[in-house]
């Protein structure tokens, strides 16, 4: 029965894809360029979750999928597998990026000061409906300061370490090609910290928010305060065949550190960084990292629980697979259900007969 349905669906499948793509119409380079220019936050979010820094390809994936984020991610993750890995860049130090934004909600007077950078945090949330009435909205120009900001800012955790507020042991550096890599090895538990942080860097923004928010609301064991939130551009330092080191260009990164005073006489920190600028994801994921030590099994802040459930391609893929024909398995379950009902009825019948004869 299931085979007949599959064969009969061929034309319907073809037309259904056409019907979906008809909504977007023709896709050209100009549309892709406009998406990249007009939607930097969305492009960044997609690049982080795809774990592939390529703004034009992310914009193309968005154009092609009509804005379905999970479809866009799948396109990018699949495309990525067609590309050879040429090098592993030098390790980026967390305080080394060309910093656009660096704030702390825990400490007012941080070394280097509070730099708001580009943000809508303090904006009035008013919809500019006049744009629809043919009155374009042009943002007022930034008034640059007379002197430039420093290009880099010190790490807050380093400052706290120097003050004895944080005493987490520092891991020993490993050779670059021995850094654990989830794209080449499976995620096993208890997870290596490098796997946890790579997994969170690629995690679904919505997924980390949902689970991180549950911890923030009290279903975790620690309440977060943002120790440091940073948006930067970091250099991709590669090697020339003759050994010279140079930057092949800059990529946008975001990182968040959250802190709790619920420790043994010192501050405890959680951390997440990702490609692209995505603050909600970094704060939520850092909250999960903060809450993970000692978390109860099967709770949302337990590492295995949140890492498995925030992988965007696997989770969305598993969800949408339920739309595919399950006729045979469902029919089989239905047969079992009917058989059980019949058996139950038959069991009940002799009793009735007994009652009748009694």
């Amino acid at each position, binding site marked *: 029965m299931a085979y007949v349905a599959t064969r009969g669906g061929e034309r319907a499948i073809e037309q259904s894809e056409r019907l979906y793509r008809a909504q977007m119409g023709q896709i050209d380079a100009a549309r892709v360029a406009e998406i990249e220019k007009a939607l930097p936050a969305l492009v960044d979010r997609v690049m982080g979750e795809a774990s*592939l*820094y390529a703004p*034009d*390809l992310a914009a193309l994936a968005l154009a092609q999928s009509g804005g379905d984020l999970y479809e866009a991610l799948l396109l990018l993750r699949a495309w*990525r597998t067609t590309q*050879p890995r*040429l*090098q*592993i*860049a030098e*390790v*980026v*130090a*967390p305080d080394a990026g060309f*910093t*656009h*934004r660096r704030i702390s909600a825990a400490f007012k007077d941080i070394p280097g*000061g509070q*730099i*708001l*950078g580009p943000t809508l945090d303090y904006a009035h949330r008013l919809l500019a409906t006049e744009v629809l009435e043919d009155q374009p909205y042009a943002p007022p120009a*930034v*008034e*640059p*300061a007379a*002197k*430039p*900001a420093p*290009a880099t800012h010190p790490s807050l*955790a380093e400052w706290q370490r120097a003050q004895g507020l944080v005493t*987490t*042991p520092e891991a020993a*550096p490993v050779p670059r090609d021995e*850094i*654990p890599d*989830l*794209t080449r090895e499976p995620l096993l538990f208890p997870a290596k*910290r490098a796997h946890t*942080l*790579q997994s969170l860097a690629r995690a679904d923004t919505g997924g980390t928010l949902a689970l991180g928010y549950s911890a923030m609301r009290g279903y975790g064991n620690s309440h977060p305060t943002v120790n440091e939130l940073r948006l930067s551009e970091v250099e*991709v330092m*590669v090697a*020339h*065949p*003759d*050994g*010279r*080191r*140079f*930057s*092949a*260009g*800059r*990529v946008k*990164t975001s990182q968040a550190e959250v802190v709790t005073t619920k420790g043994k006489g010192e501050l405890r*920190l*959680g*951390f997440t*960084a990702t*490609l692209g600028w995505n603050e909600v994801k970094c704060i939520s994921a850092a909250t999960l990292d903060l809450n993970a030590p000692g978390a109860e099994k099967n709770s949302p802040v337990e590492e295995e629980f949140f890492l498995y459930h925030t992988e965007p391609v696997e989770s969305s893929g598993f969800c949408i697979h339920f739309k595919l024909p399950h006729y045979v398995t469902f029919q089989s379950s239905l047969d079992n259900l009917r058989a059980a009902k019949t058996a139950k009825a038959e069991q009940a019948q002799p009793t009735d007969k007994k009652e009748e004869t009694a």
Partner: protein
Amino acid sequence: MFDRHGGEMPSDDLTTLARADAARLKHLAEEILPRLGDMQVLKSGTGLVMLPMRDTVQGVEFHLGEVLVAEAHVRLPSGTEGYGMVTGRDIERAMAMALLDAALSDGTAADRIRAFIEAEAQAQQAADTETLRRIEATRVDMETF
């Protein structure tokens, strides 16, 4: 920023070439190309560079994700090699960088290329300064906060 890597200072020339304005870079490479003779292309294509970062909490190094790059590797008739790698997928741009690197190492049009690198470095510095002046405008002055 980049500690523990042999101590050699990064090559500012290569960094400047990688970040140079794509149109101007290609234009200069085309201008110099006829003087380089029959060169051999050893590599030309796109690929990925994995980008690791160090965590601030435990100092653990982990992979942030991969960056799409274009790469080119050439050899001149003299045996001198040139290499280019730039973020993105513009292979022509990586090739132009590789040609200029090879020419510079070979002493072909060296003055012209040096002048180009100097001008581009100045433009990049000016662009960074302008960006940082705009960023500085968002500094919170806590006394008047």
